[in-house]
């Protein structure tokens, strides 16, 4: 069959097919490693056993409870980060003097591993759920602040001048120009923030006394040596992170339709 006879769908099908090659090869190697016992079966269950374990946990609802708890904490932390991060970022970005005076603090805490601050947040908020949310929210907040401020500072000066020459007040320039100018970078920040919030929440669920959540589930399965369940939970957690990323990229494309054009 010559290329000319392909339907218009063919290039799309080809692209999807090509993007599946990597995962299929990885699962193949996984299966081979398990089947030929390159890696001890005690450490690596087979892919099909793992996927069926994943399916069973989803259907039985036991994983959904943990998944729900993790999603709730992650989105709670992310929501706080976005609500408090965007206005602070815009304020910092539009005032050079304020930005310079806190630049070091932002950079310092951004470079501090969130996990190092667990004990501090436990002291402040107790060992309840909110300590986890607060530490994840704090890390995510810094990412949002930094990116929004950066977006505002690097906005095109011409557009601000254009608004000013038309007689726009400072507030109108802020609302009609600066906000939109910073949106592409804001979305970069939000995407990074949700990933970071998920990472911190998972680690917090593992180590700071949680009764549920995917982090708790993974470490629990490891403790009782239920490796199928451990791998299944890791896969699900990866799926959540990937899902967030895809969702935010789609949202970004829709909202910031002018980016790069």
């Amino acid at each position, binding site marked *: 069959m010559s290329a000319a006879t392909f339907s218009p769908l063919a290039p799309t099908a080809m692209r999807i097919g090509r993007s599946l090659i990597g995962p299929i090869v990885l699962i193949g190697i996984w299966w081979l490693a398990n089947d030929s016992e390159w890696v001890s079966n005690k450490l690596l269950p087979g892919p099909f056993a793992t996927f069926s374990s994943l399916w069973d946990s989803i259907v039985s609802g036991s994983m959904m409870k943990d998944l729900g708890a993790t999603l709730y904490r992650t989105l709670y932390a992310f929501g706080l980060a976005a609500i408090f991060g965007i206005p602070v970022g815009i304020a910092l970005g539009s005032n050079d003097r304020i930005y310079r005076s806190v630049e070091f603090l932002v950079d310092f805490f951004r470079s501090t591993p969130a996990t190092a601050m667990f004990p501090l947040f436990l002291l402040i908020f107790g060992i309840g759920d909110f300590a986890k949310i607060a530490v994840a929210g704090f890390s995510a907040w810094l990412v949002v602040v930094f990116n929004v401020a950066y977006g505002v500072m690097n906005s095109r000066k011409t*557009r601000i*001048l*254009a608004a000013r*020459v038309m007689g726009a007040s400072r507030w109108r320039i802020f609302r009609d120009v600066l906000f*939109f100018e910073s949106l592409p970078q804001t979305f970069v920040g939000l995407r990074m923030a949700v990933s970071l919030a998920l990472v911190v929440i998972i680690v917090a669920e593992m180590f700071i006394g949680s009764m549920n959540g995917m982090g708790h589930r993974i470490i629990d399965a490891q403790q009782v040596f239920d490796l199928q369940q451990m791998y299944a939970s890791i896969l699900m957690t990866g799926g959540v992170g990937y899902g967030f990323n895809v969702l935010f990229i789609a949202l970004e494309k829709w909202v910031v339709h002018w980016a790069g*054009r």
Partner: protein
Amino acid sequence: MNSVVDFSSHVYEEATDKTAPSTPRTHITVRGLTKKFGGVPVYSNFNLDLPKGKVTCVFGPNGCGKSTLINMIAGLVPYDEGDILFDGKTLKQTTIGYVFQNYREALFPWMRAIDNIKYPLEIMGMSKADCDTRVQELIASFDVQFDLNRYPYEFSGGQQQLISIMRALAPHPEVLFLDEPFSALDYEMTLFIREKLQEIFQATGVTMIVVSHDLEEAVYLADNILLLTKRPTRVADTVVFDAARPRDIGTLSSGAFVQTKARCLDIFQKEVRR
């Protein structure tokens, strides 16, 4: 050709008053203007009168501050000392329009083209109905054939610059500033926008200040060519070109045009070699 632009709702004084063409009234007065960049004066005690209802093209050597001059007059760049008045009024009391060189960076890509054009009217607090009326008026007078409900990046460069010009003209400015309006356009679009500007000027008689780096273009559009010196910038000379409008390709090969251009070039070269 000049029937295309008709701003019937707004009458510009100079467009109707043809009784005293010999001594045009001064529109913009610049007195004692001083501007330093990092302590080095670019303008020092600079004086200038720009005529009302005329096209003035600003031409001069690289880095002499052509754009800086119109940006100071338009209030985009602060100056250290001096007074700039429009018919005796301050900038705040005056409606101006400004067309940037880089339309891509001057239009708001998050707004549809039509909302870009409405924006200065909204800033002025005009009602929605009046905004719509004014935009329809502009669309009719510019003979716009493309759909303005699309976003700026969906248009060609020339169309985007035309949208910028419509936005600048929407609030009936007394002065229209254009900072190298053609330099980001290809040749075909340059010719198109140049003719549009001429039509607008003939229909409205709005005072236009155009910064240009192309002498032919400057002379073609201008009533007055303002020639500037190297820094610290002074006025080298003002050359008048009074060929009848509408000007066309024939104008470019006319004796008056060639002579005026040669005279400007002569002054320019003397200033560059100095």
